[in-house]
C-alpha cells in the first residue's frame, strides 16, 4: 500500500497522467480489465516497458493489479481522480453558495449593529 498524503498523491497522479500511453491504458481499463501482456501487445511495447507504466499508475493509486497464476491482471484503482475531484468541486460549490448567503446575513447584522449603536448614543 502506498502511504496516504493528499499532496503527494496528487503529484503522483499528475505524473502518472502526464504520459499518453498511461492515459490510454486508463481509458482501456475503464472499459475492461486487462493483463499486462494484453496491454503490452496493444501498445506494441515490451512486457518490461508496460510493467513500468503500470507500476507508475499503481503507485498513484489509479490502477491495481492482481496476479493469478502467471497472469497479472490490471484494473482501475481506488483513486478515481476525476470522480473525487468532481465531488470536491460540487462540495465546494455548495459551500460557496452557502457562504455567499452567509455574507449577506453578516452584512445585515453589521448594519443592524451600526443602527443600534447610533440609537444608543442618542
Amino acid at each position: 500500500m502506498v502511504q496516504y498524503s493528499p499532496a503527494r498523491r496528487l503529484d503522483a497522479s499528475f505524473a502518472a497522467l502526464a504520459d499518453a500511453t498511461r492515459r490510454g491504458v486508463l481509458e482501456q481499463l475503464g472499459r475492461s480489465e486487462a493483463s499486462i501482456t494484453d496491454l503490452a501487445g496493444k501498445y506494441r511495447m515490451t512486457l518490461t516497458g508496460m510493467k513500468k507504466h503500470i507500476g507508475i499508475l499503481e503507485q498513484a493509486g489509479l490502477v491495481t493489479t492482481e496476479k493469478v497464476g502467471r497472469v497479472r491482471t490490471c484494473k482501475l484503482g481506488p483513486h478515481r481522480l476525476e470522480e473525487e475531484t468532481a465531488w470536491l468541486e460540487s462540495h465546494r460549490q455548495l459551500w460557496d453558495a452557502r457562504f455567499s448567503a452567509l455574507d449577506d446575513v453578516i452584512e445585515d447584522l453589521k448594519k443592524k449593529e451600526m443602527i443600534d449603536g447610533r440609537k444608543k448614543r442618542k
Partner: protein
Amino acid sequence: MDARRESEPTPMKNPTTVERKSERELVITRTFNGPARLVFEAWTNAELFKRWWIPKSFPITLLSCEMDARVGGGYKLLFEASPEPKAFFGKYIEVTPHSRLVWTNEEGDDGAVTTVTFEEKGGKTLIVLHELYPSKDALDADLGSYDGMRETFDQLAEVLATLGPKN
C-alpha cells in the same frame, strides 16, 4: 424574487476551499468580512442559520430548523423530501462563544463530527470547518455517493451553472 441591490457595490467574494485532509477528514475554509461574534451568531441562532444554510438557489427546501447551541443541546433540520421529510440532527459537544463549535451528525450510522473554529483578525473572521468521519469508508461513501445528496449536488451544480458569473 429577490431583487439585487444594484446600487450597492458587491464586495469581493472571499474564496472557499475544500480539501480532503486525510482518509477521514474533510476541511473547508472561508473568510468573512465581519467580527467573529456576528459570524458565530449566524451559526448558532436558528433564525439566522435558516437564512443561509439553504440559500434560495438550492433545489431543496428547509422546512424547519431548531437549535439549542449549548453543550449537550441538540439541533434538528427538517428538509422537504418524499415520501416524508428528511431530518438531520445531532448534539453540540462543545460550544465556546465566538471561537469554537463542535457537533455530531447522528442521522446515519457513519456520521461525521463537525468542528467549526472562528478566528478573528482585523475585523475579519476565518472559519475552518473540519469534518472527521469514523472511518475512511464512511468518507469514501460520501465521496462516492453521498446517499441521496449526490442527486442534490448534481442538481445544485446545474443550478449554479445556470446562474453563471454574477455581473
